[in-house]
């Protein structure tokens, strides 16, 4: 056991910083935030679609009233029979589909592994980087349900799209477990050549509701 390790390390840190003037506060070290809050002033949804597509996500842009139809068609194309959904997923999103939607009530991992896909909403999406963030909030469920199934269909409302990373960080609550998703799982570990599809969902489909 490392009794006293804490005190030893902190003492070594303080000794190492003997050159830092006494009385200097952390805020006295100037951090100039000269970078921009967003790199685009243009149309965010178009940019988000472009970025998501670049990462090989399948993207649909539909009027809000047609979300159910878009979800139903996507699930049909995919050949999905059973999906898992967060308990508070809006029922209207899956109303037009005939798939069996299993609400996640602390399902075992093996059960999650047995469904064909998952449908969730999101906390927000970042246009500049093509990133969708889940925060385990409304219509998202716990982290495991968007991880174990091989197919993830995510509904993004147009009003959830922010321009760039700084706006996203400002809106997100660090107290919640967050998952930032930019396309399907991928690897560059073989000759630094990017291929999609490893351990996370190998297909990411996004329905953007305007």
């Amino acid at each position, binding site marked *: 056991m490392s009794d006293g390790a804490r005190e030893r390390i902190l003492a070594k840190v303080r000794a190492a910083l003997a050159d830092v003037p006494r009385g200097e506060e952390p805020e006295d070290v100037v951090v100039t935030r000269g970078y921009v809050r967003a790199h685009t002033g243009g149309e965010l949804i178009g940019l988000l679609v472009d970025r998501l597509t670049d990462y090989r996500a399948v993207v649909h842009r539909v009027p809000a009233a047609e979300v159910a139809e878009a979800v139903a068609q996507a699930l049909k194309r995919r050949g999905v029979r059973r999906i898992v959904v967060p308990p508070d997923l809006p029922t209207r999103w899956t109303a037009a589909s005939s798939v069996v939607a299993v609400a996640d009530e602390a399902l075992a991992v093996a059960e999650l592994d047995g469904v064909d896909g998952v449908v969730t909403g999101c906390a927000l999406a970042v246009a500049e980087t093509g990133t969708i963030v889940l925060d385990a909030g409304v219509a998202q469920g716990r*982290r495991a349900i968007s991880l174990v199934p091989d197919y993830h269909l995510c509904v993004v409302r147009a009003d959830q799209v922010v321009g760039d990373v700084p706006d996203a960080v400002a809106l997100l609550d660090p107290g919640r477990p967050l998952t930032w998703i930019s396309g399907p799982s991928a690897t560059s570990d073989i000759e630094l050549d990017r291929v999609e599809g490893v351990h996370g969902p190998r297909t990411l489909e996004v329905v953007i509701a305007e």
Partner: protein
Amino acid sequence: MSGTFVGMPAFPEAASAATQNAQLRHNLRKATHTIRGKRAAVVSELDDWAELRAAGKAIKDRTLRHLDVYLEQLEEAVTAAGGHVHWAADAAEANAIVTRLVRATGETEVVKVKSMATQEIELNEALAEAGITAYETDLAELIVQLGEDRPSHILVPAIHRNRAEIREIFNRTMAEWGVPAPANLSDEPRALAEAARVHLRDKFLNAKVAVSGANFAVAETGTLVVLESEGNGRMCLTLPETLISVVGIEKLVPTWQDLEVFMQLLPRSSTGERMNPYTSTWTGSTPGDGPGDFHLVLLDNGRTDVLADEVGRQSLRCIRCSACLNICPVYERAGGHAYGSVYPGPIGAILTPQLRGTSSELDASLPYASSLCGACYEVCPVAIDIPEVLVHLRGKVVEGKGTTVERVAMGAAGWVLGDEKRLGLAQRAAGKARGLVPKRHLPGPGAAWTDTRDIPDIPEESFRDWWAGRGRGQQR
């Protein structure tokens, strides 16, 4: 079990062997040039890259200059969020803490997220001695582990392997570790990734304990951050009941807002993507979502020694993106193994001798593993002046050392160069004796110097004599 770096020869020797390996040279060249191009493209998309870089540097400097304050703040925040914080002064302490925590769960297997800190302390080897098997789950780490190999790159530890070699390793070894490679496995990256998925799937779904590192730890909120691509990180951070994260004390950032800088700098510098596929953040534990038991092990292991060096301190700003490796002409040719450390390339050449000291021949040779071209500094997202630290460390290596011949030669040179008349006499003497100087190799103690250089021609007349002669109308 992966190989060890212990007992490696000095960099020039190891690099000399590596540069003779045509396959290795080909693999490295292809990979580093691919990633260089991708990085350059996504960095050029942001016209405020210089401002982001300056902010990243300043945030890390603020953290390091007040590290004690932030460490205590982080500990308090993690504890308040239901996590447990442990402190480890060195590798042995960290390994003992992790071993004890795993034993307390009664498990004999852990799944691991790629982590430089746990490689540095050789955690897998320590766990194996305690009868605990650690399964690496990152694809490149898996390749290294199955191949009983050593990592050669920070981001892609198996960068020295090409697809054909990886297929061979999978075919030969996967069965020993669990689910075998599929029959007729091709060497297509997609097929190899699929084989890794199948091989590790059951491990993920049944794992009870995971070990990770972290890219960032936010002092203000107690939040840990892991960036990854494959989803192996999410699996390890989400499904097990117990999560143990070993994190170097330099990984802190002060505030949640600071991530707005690093979440732009790191993915673009590292994999050359606008954003990596997955980033997980968690604060302590969340009931009903993810591991209920979270342990943070804060690791020193030489970092406070680096902190104490006012020039070398900037090395601790490193966010392990590996852009400096990918751009480095020396790394591209010598490969990562020659650096004899889990931290290869330019950043390794300054970090390793500071973390481990320069008592071994290998570690003392690392500050010289550079042509000082400065490309590493140019691409560094937190503006670590690697050439400055290299030169500083060379000075430290040489201090109190040097051969007698060297000292005599330098003393004589000082005497000659210190006086105009003496210099003039020496130059004229050299001009007269030029026929006696060998053309290619110096004899005696000068031989080593001329092994890699030609002796410069000595002119008949020195510049100073020629210049003085101009005034007397002898213009040429």
